[in-house]
């Protein structure tokens, strides 16, 4: 199974590829400009230094693909925010930016949080966040300082998480990624 891992200049983008490899799939790390030529079974896009909505232009190629993708897609951090913007949600600077360890409440375990406890400690690094979820999306998890920590589309395999499941300090992070990869195998 080929998993496109989109490189956006984030600190943990390369780690996503490592985790995908550890889960037995084949990661293909690529720039957003290479997406139109790539073939893949599903896509994970990570974080990056860009700010949304201001830097949308710099992410336009990824946005183009996210708007049309039929394969399962997981957006992490910046790409979670991009997913929300593309589908009509709103992104703004966080009132309380989160860095390091934060407790997150799982609201809906399907599909990403399947088999996880109701409360997990995750690792964060964001200045902006999704403030209004797009229509057709469902809230999956929240923290005290950031409501939309995770969301999924109600009918399409589109997922977004604000925190970083790919870093070791996120509890059950590997399980979350593995749950996502399961949707790719369906």
């Amino acid at each position: 199974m080929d998993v496109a891992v989109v490189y956006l200049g984030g600190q943990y983008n390369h780690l996503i590829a490592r985790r995908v490899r550890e889960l037995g799939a084949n990661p293909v790390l690529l720039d957003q400009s290479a997406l139109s030529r790539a073939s893949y079974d599903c896509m994970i896009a990570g974080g990056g230094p860009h700010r949304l909505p201001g830097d949308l232009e710099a992410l336009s190629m990824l946005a183009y693909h996210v708007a049309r993708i039929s394969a399962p897609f997981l957006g992490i951090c910046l790409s979670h925010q991009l997913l929300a913007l593309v589908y009509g949600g709103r992104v703004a600077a966080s009132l309380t930016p989160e860095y390091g360890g934060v407790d997150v409440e799982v609201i809906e375990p399907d599909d990403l949080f399947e088999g996880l406890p109701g409360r997990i400690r995750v690792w964060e690094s964001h200045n902006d966040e999704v403030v209004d979820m797009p229509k057709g999306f469902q809230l999956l998890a929240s923290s005290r300082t950031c409501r939309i920590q995770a969301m999924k589309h109600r009918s399409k395999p589109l997922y977004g998480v604000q925190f970083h499941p790919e870093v070791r300090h996120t509890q059950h992070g590997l399980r979350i990624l593995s749950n996502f990869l399961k949707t790719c195998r369906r």
Partner: protein
Amino acid sequence: MAGDWLASYIDRQVKELREKVGREGCALAAVSGGVDSTTAAVLAYKALGSRVQAVFIDTGFMREGEAHRVKSELKGILPLEIVDYSERFLGSLEGLSDAEEKRKKFRSIFYSVLSEEAVKRGCRYLVQGTIAPDIIETVGGIKTQHNVLAQAGLNPLKNYGFTVLEPLKELYKDEVRRVARLLGVPDSVVERQPFPGPGLLIRVVGGLSRGKLGVARRATRIVEEQMGGWGASQYFAAVWIDDVANVGGGELLIYRGVRATGVRGDARRYGPIVLYRGGWSRPRDLEGMVSRLPSMPGDPVRMVAEIYSRNSGKYAVAIRAVVTEDFMTADILDVDRQRLEHLALKIASEIPEARRIVYDVTPKPPATIEYE
């Protein structure tokens, strides 16, 4: 499965090293004694045999007795020559205080020295222990790692006359440790906590002087001797001038004239350090306060909590201890204040120049592990 991938990774690298260097070529290997550079050199030695010439550059920013400890540890595994360039490094870096300026100057001297050593030996290749986080942090503009050239847009062949070989550049620290074990690198090297390439240079926070460097060296020895079994993945001391100002009264103060490196939302931050002088019994108690750092005056990047202070001396000595596997994210080591007080008293009694001893309570992110 991960083990298989690493074994085949090693085979691929050995093959690639042989293809690149060819039958005649010679490769210089820069070895600091840390797990990354040692493993890269041992891997190259496995591939190329005596055509690899390993050197330990004494930069003057090493810990006490480091050069000879490394040489004797690698006896029988990797022949190593120590070359002393400490005066050149110290002379050029003294007085610099900006973190990136220090790092970039260090990098430039480091490669000039390696270039001279390579020319002397007729080597046209350089083997170095660059790993994935070095490249990610440098390219991401978080901090300039001293061992990243090509990916930072510097052409090594044109600037220094050698082609760089980085057999570990796809790996993280925990993977390098597994590779090291597979290659028979001694446990003492495999398990060693990381020590940055620029060494104590970046643990002397702000302006570099020989006196401050001496304090950092002594404090590092004490912290390393005492904290060995405490469960931290990395633990060390850093030193800066203890000059604090009040920020609206209360228990929070801000360090004047000192900045430290941080990472927030995948971007670099270089900002002030906050000192907390209130009560605490465990570092974890201060987590809520650390999460409010961005809303504090001056937008500080990290917070340290006072363990001990007195009215003599001029330096703050910070104890930094983190728990991490791959060093991309890190949690603070949560430990009883009482234990830290014992350690602080030991530092205070051995280092009269220390005015205040503090414990860093900031995870990565928003701080980085090192201060600069």
